[in-house]
């Protein structure tokens, strides 16, 4: 089965961001979205550890370990950026000041429930939640970036999450390596599908009912999509 490569998925999400706004990119795959933001983007990236207007990683040898992102990797600060403490940072999230948080997920339900911090089966390892739960509750819009199915071929979009929940009814848009799906009051609505894929084919890989307009937009294999 043809799927979008991880980088092309990141590019696809980047191309859907508004031209201005405050955006938090979750740890892991979503972090890569930053690499595909146009140079003149008005998007201001937030990182939970206390920074607004995160810039790209510094050249090798110029890393400063007091200037890191939520994934604890060295970054830079763009012009107009600022530093603040964690309490202020989470007030930005919880208080609804962030426009969009883009998070990874293990499962998303048809009602927008999100499970992304634990699979419940940790093999005895300590659980870690970080800022996942805070982010999922606070941002004005929660977008998900994930593979459409698990490595074992099971759907990640499900009727009801079986993994421990991060937040209830928060997800508004799902970007996968096969499709873009909106979570609406009336259910899951396919906005766009990878070229060559049929709605029936996509439905087979999805654990909850999909609706679609007569002609969903087409996602090309380079991550761009039709209007």
């Amino acid at each position: 089965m043809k799927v979008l490569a991880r980088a092309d998925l990141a590019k696809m999400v980047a191309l859907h961001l508004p031209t201005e706004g405050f955006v938090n990119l979750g740890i892991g795959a979503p972090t890569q979205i930053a690499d595909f933001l146009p140079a003149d983007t008005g998007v201001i990236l937030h990182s939970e550890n206390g920074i607004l207007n995160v810039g790209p990683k510094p050249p090798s040898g110029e890393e400063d370990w007091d200037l890191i992102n939520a994934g604890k990797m060295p970054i830079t600060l763009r012009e107009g950026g600022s530093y603040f403490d964690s309490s202020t940072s989470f007030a930005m999230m919880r208080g609804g000041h962030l426009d969009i948080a883009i998070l990874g997920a293990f499962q998303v339900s048809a009602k927008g429930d999100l499970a992304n911090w634990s699979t419940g089966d940790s093999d005895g390892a300590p659980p870690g939640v970080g800022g996942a739960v805070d982010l999922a509750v606070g941002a004005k819009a929660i977008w998900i970036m994930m593979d459409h199915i698990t490595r074992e071929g099971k759907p990640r979009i499900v009727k009801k999450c079986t993994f421990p929940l991060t937040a209830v009814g928060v997800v508004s848009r799902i970007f996968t390596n096969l499709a873009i799906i909106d979570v609406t009051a009336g259910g899951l609505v396919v906005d766009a599908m990878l070229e060559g894929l049929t709605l029936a084919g996509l439905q087979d890989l999805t654990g909850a009912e999909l609706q679609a307009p007569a002609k969903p937009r087409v996602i090309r294999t380079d991550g761009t999509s039709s209007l």
Partner: protein
Amino acid sequence: MRNVVVKDAREAVAGLKDGHTVMVGGFGGAGLPRDTIKAVLDTGVRELTVISNNAGSDESDLSLWFAARIVRKIVCSYPRAAQVFAEQYRAGTVELELVPQGTLVERIRAGGAGLGGFLSPVGVGTVFEHGKQKINVGGRDFLLELPLKADFAFVKGKCADAFGNVTYNMTARNHCQVMATAASTVAIEVDRIVEVGELDPESIVTPCIFVDRVFERGLQ
């Protein structure tokens, strides 16, 4: 004149006792008071309750405390990539209270600000609501989150003056600013001690009223 400068990390941790609750600043390595962490180890104290964002991931951080088995319980948000802690967690010799990061820092803020707690929407409908009182305000459910306080707070600043005014460096501020308000004794490790009056009052993040001890790292 007020002067809270102490000679070194050893003096900064004086008075720490078995069973104390200790806040340790830092997000990863940024804001982590590494000299202080070593000095605590040298005191021989045991049975500490630690409040920190992480649980150590290298050889000069909280891993030292777990390796020496001086921690009874840790309250934190992200104890992953913490090998020594994980071993003890699996063995059941250390207790973990997992708290979402924003809730963790706000509980500390509540402790330092004299609040009896706060109502948060974070965690409603998840395992994080277990054991907490749910209160509906304006049609929305919130969880009652209780304050956190400590006997000692150990954090890392950039510069301090003798009064105990402190500045921070970039993302090294993280939990440090709030922790410095919430402990009986606040000891801050800094890169440099400067003359009173030298710090731009606009740049001071932790005003000296919160601070009991400051010392320059690396001098011992």
